[in-house]
Every structure is written in structure tokens, then in C-alpha cells.
């Protein structure tokens, strides 16, 4: 536990102490808000020119895009912990010091904390901008219960994110350059398959099956149930998110442990990456 706490503190230093922390958070909110607004504008232009604009879908996109921005920013953390560590030659020391999984989990949690703050702020900021600029009042409920459930769904997301993060970190052990490529593609795939912007049912069959296997889809549904409704769907979506997340976590841990063992045998752990 002390190891995880140390890694969380280290991760927070990495995430928000490159400048005055409130500025670091604010700087994170701006791109996340812009990313949400881009999706909203695309939908708004498409549907208003088509003659039918339903504010429900604007709310649907705001919540989904905010969560997507949240996931896509912190699934980088585990891979970055490994590849940056290899570049700066700190990863071999972490390996010698004890469990690298502890370090990676701590860094992911730190990134989650930072990203949760920016996700919440960008959700509020985007809702406000949308109410002013296209002038659409998105039916998003912001009260204690809905926000608590929204935060709970994001917290459940940590399980899945650590799982996916460990898979990426396993890849990071072996990769020597262009390590950013894979997370970029995975983040893009998440945008399409996790119902961030549109329901998976609008994808041709059998692609919706991929969506059902992703914990992020259920987390997004749970978050929407909390903020848009209906609230009675929340427990089901949250349970589905937790179950699929645990499966991903188990797969991530297994793949990472095997990769780390193979990396040690092949000499990748202390290979300098420039």
C-alpha cells in the first residue's frame, strides 16, 4: 500500500506540478472542453440542417465525450510510466526496488485523479457553452446524487483502465520507439466502440458485440444513466462495467506479468530508449 501511495504522489507530481497545480488543471480542461464541443457541433450541424434536433442527443454526446476525454487521457499513464522510465533510466530502478505493477497502478490512479477533475470541469464548461452558443439546453441533471453516481462510475472505470493500461505497459516493455502509436489507435477505437458519441446499435453487425465486451461502454452507459437518466438502469450498467472491468484487469495483470518476465530474460527491462 505504501508503494502505491508513493507512486500516486510521484504520478501527481508528474501530472500537475510542471506548473502551479490549478493552472495545470485549467490547462487540461481547455482541450477536453474543445474536444466535447467539436463532437457537439458536428451533431448540431448535422441534425439542425436535417431539421430535427433533439436536446437529449446533445446531452448524450456531452456526457459520452467528457468520459471519452477522461479515459483517453489517462490510459496513457501506464505506458508512459514504462517508456518514460526506460528513456530516463528510472524503470530499471523501479524494477529492482520491488513491484513494477504497484508503480504502474499508482501512476494510473494519479492520472485518474487529475483527469477526473478535468472531466468534471469540462462537462460543466461544455454544457454551459452549448447553452449559450447553439442555444441548446442539454437535459443534464447536476445534483448531489447524480454527481455521486457519475463519480462512482468513473471510479469503477479505474479497474478497467488499469487492465487496459497494463496491457499497454506490457507493450511498452518491448517497444523501442514510436511507443505513442498504439495508444492513439486504441483511443480512436474507444471513441467508435464505447458509445462515446453514438449508440453502438448504429454500427453494422457484428461490431456492436465488440462494444458489449468493452467495460468502457458500460461505464459510459452508467454515467449517462446517472446524469441524463433513467436512474433505475444505473445498477445494471455499473455491475456490467465492474464485471467486464475485472475481466480486463485479470487479463492485463496476466499479460503484464508474463511480459515482464520475458522482458527480463531478453534484456528489455534496462534497455535504454531514446
Amino acid at each position: 500500500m505504501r508503494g502505491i501511495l508513493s507512486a500516486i504522489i510521484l504520478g501527481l507530481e508528474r501530472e500537475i506540478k510542471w506548473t502551479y497545480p490549478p493552472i495545470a488543471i485549467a490547462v487540461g480542461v481547455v482541450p477536453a472542453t474543445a474536444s466535447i464541443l467539436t463532437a457537439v457541433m458536428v451533431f448540431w450541424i448535422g441534425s439542425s440542417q436535417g431539421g430535427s434536433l433533439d436536446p437529449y442527443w446533445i446531452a448524450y454526446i456531452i456526457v459520452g465525450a467528457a468520459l471519452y476525454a477522461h479515459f483517453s487521457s489517462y490510459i496513457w499513464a501506464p505506458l508512459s510510466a514504462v517508456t518514460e522510465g526506460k528513456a530516463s533510466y528510472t524503470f530499471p530502478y523501479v524494477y529492482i526496488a520491488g513491484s513494477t505493477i504497484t508503480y504502474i497502478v499508482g501512476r494510473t490512479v494519479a492520472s485518474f485523479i487529475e483527469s477526473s477533475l478535468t472531466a468534471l470541469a469540462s462537462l460543466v464548461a461544455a454544457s454551459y457553452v452549448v447553452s449559450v452558443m447553439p442555444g441548446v439546453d442539454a437535459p443534464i441533471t447536476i445534483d448531489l446524487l447524480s454527481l455521486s453516481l457519475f463519480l462512482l462510475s468513473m471510479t469503477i472505470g479505474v479497474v478497467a483502465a488499469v487492465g487496459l493500461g497494463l496491457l499497454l505497459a506490457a507493450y511498452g516493455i518491448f517497444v523501442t520507439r514510436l511507443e505513442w502509436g498504439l495508444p492513439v489507435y486504441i483511443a480512436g477505437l474507444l471513441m467508435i466502440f464505447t458509445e462515446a458519441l453514438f449508440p453502438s446499435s448504429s454500427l453494422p453487425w457484428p461490431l456492436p458485440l465488440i462494444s458489449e465486451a468493452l467495460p468502457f461502454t458500460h461505464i459510459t452507459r452508467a454515467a449517462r444513466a446517472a446524469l441524463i437518466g433513467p436512474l433505475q438502469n444505473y445498477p445494471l450498467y455499473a455491475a456490467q462495467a465492474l464485471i467486464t472491468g475485472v475481466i480486463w484487469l485479470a487479463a492485463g495483470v496476466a499479460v503484464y506479468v508474463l511480459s515482464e518476465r520475458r522482458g527480463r530474460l531478453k534484456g528489455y527491462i534496462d534497455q535504454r530508449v531514446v
Partner: protein
Amino acid sequence: MTSMALALLYRFAGLGQFTGFAVLGGGMMAYWGNVLWSMASQLNWDKRSGMLYLYIASPAPLTSLLVGMSLGGIVGTLPSSLIVLAIGITLFNPQFSPPSIALAATFTLTLIALYGMGIALSSLYMVTGREAEEINEAIFEPVSFLSGLYFPSVGRGSPFPFALQAVASLIPLTIGMDTLRRVAIYGQDLPDVWANLAALSLMALVSIIGGTRALSYVEMRGRRTGDLTVRIR
């Protein structure tokens, strides 16, 4: 992937014919990403990895190096841009006008203005430390949003109020994307978009002159103060 997702969103919103906006934006997004993450950041990364002093010591001026990197970036990004366009056209079949001189001129001038902006940013990033990456993160999405990479942000069909359109018009990518849409999607030609091309030419000139001057200033200042190649700040 973002362009595919937004093309699907256009289709979901009921206007399949607008998927061309997202596909075209995806093609240009590759260049905008290259300008920020490769051009603008390159000297900063070289400084952090200890390579910058070799550039400073070499007889070639930094500006020549950056102009060379710009050309390399344009050529190197072309395949990924073409792949995005090819996949988008195959999947969504948007209706594009046939290639024309206006399209070639718009594309070329947009890239010159963008890479000139990259040179200007590289001089800014050279005096920063790790903040450069955070600044990149902070400006990538907002500029993509304001410049209307995936939807018309200025002129016909823009959801923005006039004041915001005026601000967005100061970004070369905005004028470039607007002109590309008008030429490639609405089938306009040189007589229709000459004003945009003139604005792009002016922006290209200003960004290149401003960028090279800023870089020379930062380089000379760094030589005097001796902190240009300091790796940890």
C-alpha cells in the same frame, strides 16, 4: 479514427452527405498534428536529449534546419494523410469535386502557413522545458475546434457568432479548411476563393518571416545568456 467517428456521427445525425467534412478534416489533421508534435517540438526534444548543441555548433543556421524538417514533415505525413482520406472515401463515399488548380494552391498555401507557424512555435518551445508538451496538449484540440477541422467554423453553416468567427479566421488552418471545403466539397474554383487564397498567402508570409525572426532572436539570446542548451529547467 477521430475522423471516422465524426463521420459516423454525421451519418447518425442524418446528414450522410456531410461525412466529407470529417474525412477532409481527418486528412488535414495529420498535418496539424505533425506541425505541433514534430515541427514545433523537435528542437525542444533535441534540447532535452542533448542534441541541440550539435545543431548550434554546426555551420548550418537553425532556420535552414527547420525549413528542411518542414519539407520532410510534409512528405512524411503525406502517406498517413492519404490513407485517412482513402479509408474515409471507401467507407463513407463522400462526394468530392475532381482535383483542380484551386485545390492544389489551397493545399500548398495552407501547409506553408501551417509549417511557418510550426517554426514560430519551435522558437517558443526552445526556451521552455517540459511545459512544451503541455502547451501542445492544450492548444491541439482548441485550435482543431476553432479552425473547423471537422465542421464549418467560418462562413456558410458556421455555428459560431461573428466575433468568434473573426478570432478563428486569424488561424491559418481555419482559412485553409474553409477554402478546402469550398473547393473540394462545394466545387468552387479560383475566382470564388481568390480572397481566401490571398489571405492564406499573407498568413504564410507572415508566419514564415515571424517564425524565422523569432527563432533567430531566441538563438542569439541563448548564445548570449548561455542557457539555450541547458537540459533541465
